């Protein structure tokens, strides 16, 4: 233990904090974007309109069959080709995360929408609400509420996955830790510290999920 030097953490905290901010910000935006796009995909899939549900199903199955890191690469190299100009690592990573996570969120939302009783839809219909109004005011709020624990769980996974952005040279928390570890020559301390930080954040998330679940079951 005498060889360990944990001062290195203290002195590089501002640098690490910047990295963590990027990780959290990317996670937050990807969750929002992923849920919005995922909900639209779920609605398309359940719409009963064949071409629409087919497109949504194909998209979901395609995305779920490739590794995230590949999607991140794709958009890093593809988006500049399509737009004719680079948009930066952060935005290309964000787009990749949103499009990737949307496939997973759409499956969660699909289960959520199907968990709403048919009678609720009948009630909406019988008062003259149209399809979109029923989805907006009756089905989605209930679907969303029923699925909150799973949505948060998926968010925790997403947070861990943000460490993959090092491949497009984004300086997230994991990358920042690596940089410090290598430049200061304190690999063990830094990676231990990084592990602790990930654990604290993700475990708090899991505790949140647990308390949400028990609150919902009462």
């Amino acid at each position, binding site marked *: 233990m005498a060889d360990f030097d944990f001062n290195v953490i203290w002195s590089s905290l501002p640098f690490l904090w910047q990295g963590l901010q990027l990780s959290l910000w990317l996670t937050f935006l990807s969750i929002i974007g992923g849920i919005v796009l995922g909900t639209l995909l779920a609605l398309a899939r359940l719409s009963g309109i064949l071409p629409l549900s087919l497109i949504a199903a194909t998209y979901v199955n395609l995305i779920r069959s490739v590794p995230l890191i590949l999607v991140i690469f794709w958009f890093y190299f593809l988006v500049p080709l399509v737009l004719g100009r680079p948009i930066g690592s952060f935005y290309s990573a964000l787009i990749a995360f949103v499009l990737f996570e949307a496939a997973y969120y759409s499956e969660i939302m699909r289960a959520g929408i199907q968990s709403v*009783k048919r*009678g*609720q839809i*009948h*009630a*909406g*219909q*019988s*008062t*003259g*609400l*149209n399809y979109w*109004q029923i989805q907006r*005011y*009756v089905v989605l*709020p*209930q679907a969303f*509420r029923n699925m909150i624990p799973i949505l948060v769980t998926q968010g925790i996974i997403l947070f861990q996955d943000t460490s993959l952005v090092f491949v497009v040279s984004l300086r997230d928390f994991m990358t920042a830790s690596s940089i410090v570890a290598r430049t200061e020559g304190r690999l063990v301390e830094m990676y231990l510290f990084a592990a602790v930080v990930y654990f604290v954040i993700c475990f708090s998330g899991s505790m949140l999920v647990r308390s949400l679940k028990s609150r919902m079951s009462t």
Partner: protein
Amino acid sequence: MISIENISKWYGDFRVLSNCTTSVRKGEVVVVCGPSGSGKSTLIKCVNGLEPVQEGKITVDGDEVTAKRANLTALRSRIGMVFQHFELYPHMSVLENLCLAQEKVLGRGRKEAVVRAEKLLTRVGMEDHAKKYPSQLSGGQQQRIAIARSLAMDPIAMLFDEPTSALDPEMIKEVLDVMIELAQEGMTMMVVTHEMGFARKVADRVIFMDEGAIVEDRPTNDFFDNPESERAEDFLSKILGH
């Protein structure tokens, strides 16, 4: 007001409704009864187009429900419906339950919708519960609110699909009282129910169904005193015999 002509409906190969014909005049109260699985709930759900039919024609106030291009949302907004399991929106307060369709379908302003909602809550004796959520209320209370929610749309007719079947016995009366009052005020009503006391008291006619067909369709007293078919007689003896 409501006219049902020769409708038939299948679930796959299974025929749930066969050649049903009847009608409900303005201000009339018609009770639909019959053993479970006789198609009575399905019949009433066809009236506002919640269930499609394969054959036949249904019109409500001159508009054809079964037409291919029927504007069902407009039509449904004019017919109230009350369900066996209440189907209040669990994520909304009682007041929001009553205001949603008023605002989104009828385009009423917030104030107007609230005033109408409060008036109806008073009418069903629930004025103190406007801020509560459905899960905080008993079944009878929830059903009275569901009735108020339908009435808030100023419907020209009301459909009831076994409104008291999911209730504990001691709560049935409070819901039936609201329905009786509504009937006596002249509301056009079509009611699927096993409450024969209710039928005797306010129904103008009773429709008896069995195996997807309308077996009897007669004035209330005639039906109870002198059922024509053996099946109806059998049904009545079972339901009144205890």
